[in-house]
């Protein structure tokens, strides 16, 4: 008797390699060839949300932790990058008309006369790159440790993450002199002397973004196929059984939440670089929930699905909101309800159920093995 999956645990199944190549081909070859520089930059922006969706697949799909506050980590990553770019744009020469030259313009407008301490590390590019990932991940660790060690989960956790998103938005808007307030951090020009506003730079950033996204998919895949990935699924099923098998359940949830935050942070930083500004409107409740919808539409158990879901919903958003701006939010809400009710596994679920069986003609169904009927006679 042949047991196909028993003794080998390959990094990816052949079908998954095909999916990865298709996705890489689409992002790195097809779209750059087909789109003009403006549209390509737009797709690049959408793809930064895909990092968040990817994190949600691990955190929500696999581990069952629904976070409605991923915008917080996306925003923190984006703000860390924006702070560096802003400091570089605020050299003494560039800002000599200010009453305090050498500090960001919004600080000067708000009567701040010296650079606050927490801005100082962002003079350094290496420190900034570390902070982009470390700050959101540490913040996620603190939230995760506080919640999961106290066994807060499910709806309560979702509500708390949403509250944190609201609080952070209010804080950023309120502390205008330190954060740029509601306008965010704008007028970003160069990255270590390299002008990021030119079309050529935007194209390069698009490819960097695409490469990072593929890299994050591979990291997520490595986590998913490790024993840790199966423990996450097991915890979603029967948390107590995992706990009483000798695992500190809270640590595993914290890990999943931190990983999702780290992915979101990379996306946020790439957003700032490609779009050229960061503002509180990407931190709050609405973007956080939109990011959950991307994941749901793509399929919350599929890494590739999350990317396609993000692209599709954003494409729809751009097309519809150009023609019917006031209807878009209703459309998005309806889409979410429809997906949850009719296709709980999203696009990836439809693909697996209807397309894949047609592609591989072999009549195989290893998922449904012969199982002894209940109470089979004992020999």
């Amino acid at each position: 008797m042949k047991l196909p999956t028993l003794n080998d645990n390959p990094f990816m199944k052949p079908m998954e390699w095909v999916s990865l190549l298709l996705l890489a081909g689409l992002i790195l070859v097809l779209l750059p060839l087909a789109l003009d520089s403006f549209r390509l930059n737009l797709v690049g922006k959408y793809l930064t949300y895909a990092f968040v969706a990817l994190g949600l697949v691990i955190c929500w799909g696999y581990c069952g932790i629904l976070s409605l506050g991923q915008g917080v980590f996306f925003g923190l990553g984006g703000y860390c990058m924006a702070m560096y770019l802003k400091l570089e744009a605020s050299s003494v020469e560039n800002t000599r008309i200010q009453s305090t030259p050498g500090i960001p313009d919004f600080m000067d407008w708000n009567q701040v006369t010296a650079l606050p301490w927490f801005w100082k590390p962002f003079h350094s590019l290496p420190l900034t790159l570390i902070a982009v990932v470390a700050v959101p991940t540490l913040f996620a660790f603190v939230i995760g440790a506080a919640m999961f060690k106290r066994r807060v989960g499910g709806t309560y956790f979702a509500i708390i993450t949403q509250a944190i998103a609201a609080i952070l938005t209010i804080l950023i808007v309120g502390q205008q002199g330190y954060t740029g307030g509601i306008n965010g951090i704008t007028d970003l020009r160069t990255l270590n002397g390299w002008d990021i506003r030119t079309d050529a730079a935007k194209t390069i950033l698009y490819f960097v973004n695409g490469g990072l996204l593929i890299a994050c998919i591979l990291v997520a895949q490595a986590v998913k196929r490790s024993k840790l990935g199966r423990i996450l699924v097991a915890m979603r099923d029967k948390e107590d059984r995992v706990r009483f098998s000798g695992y500190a359940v809270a640590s595993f949830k914290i890990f999943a939440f931190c990983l999702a935050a780290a992915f979101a942070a990379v996306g946020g930083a790439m957003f700032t670089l490609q779009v050229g500004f960061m503002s509180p409107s990407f931190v709050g409740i609405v973007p956080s929930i939109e990011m959950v919808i991307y994941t749901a539409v793509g399929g919350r158990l599929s890494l590739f699905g999350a990317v396609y879901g993000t692209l599709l919903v954003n494409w729809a958003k751009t097309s519809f909101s150009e023609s019917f701006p006031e209807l878009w939010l209703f459309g998005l809400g309806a889409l979410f309800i429809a997906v949850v009710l009719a296709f709980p596994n999203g696009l990836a679920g439809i693909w697996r159920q209807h397309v894949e069986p047609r592609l591989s003609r072999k009549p195989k169904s290893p998922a449904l093995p012969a199982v002894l009927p209940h109470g089979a006679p004992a020999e």
Partner: protein
Amino acid sequence: MSAALLPGASPNDKDFLLAVEGLTVSFDGFKAVNDVSFYVDPDEIRVIIGPNGAGKTTVLDLICGRTKATSGSIKYRGQELTRLSESAIVQAGVGRKFQTPSIYDDLTVFENLEISFPRGRTVLGALTFKRDAEVRDRIHAIAEMIFLKDHLDARAEFLSHGQKQWLEIGMLLIQDPELLMLDEPVAGMSVAERKKTAELLHQIIKGRSVLVIEHDMKFVEDIAHRVTVLHQGRVLSEGSMERVKNDPKVVEVYLGH
């Protein structure tokens, strides 16, 4: 086997695998378990019986750390368990099976067993865990024992109720606990499955102690070395099945029905 201990005698903890003394837990003033003491020897099969609401499951919850004791002590090989976290208690060598089969529906039988393999229990350990020959051999050996060797690749949700119970017992076996606690392992099983389970239990007790909650008296008689009867959170009687059966107090509250 050591001589049966009379309740109230003062023993030396060190001789026992598990020494529960003066264990009390109170939920909003209601004492679900009230001053319970009992001692389990190495290699002993102890069955806890008692009417519904007697506090049997609560005693297991207290030992495995799911519920925190209000007072009293639980010593496992001389180590106080009431202060340890659930995962530390498991790592000390205590395994617990739940009343309803508690397995991972979305994983295969193989993966269910693998998660219980006692290695790589930290986040880093789980990330770097390798499915090597030792793991595979052990999973195959356990699967054979629990009558599931032909179902290793089946998703656990497609197993029958009895098979799910065996799978959970298998998951405990792979942990290799010294103290195995089973909550109604044959509940809802067919006669044939029940017989197989009794065989299985006889096979797995070698080298470990087992604490079982069970209602099926025939099954209890078949496996128990000693029986502890709980009633309204207190120990009503203790000793061999023969002795307990003939205890007038026990007959009145439990067996007489």
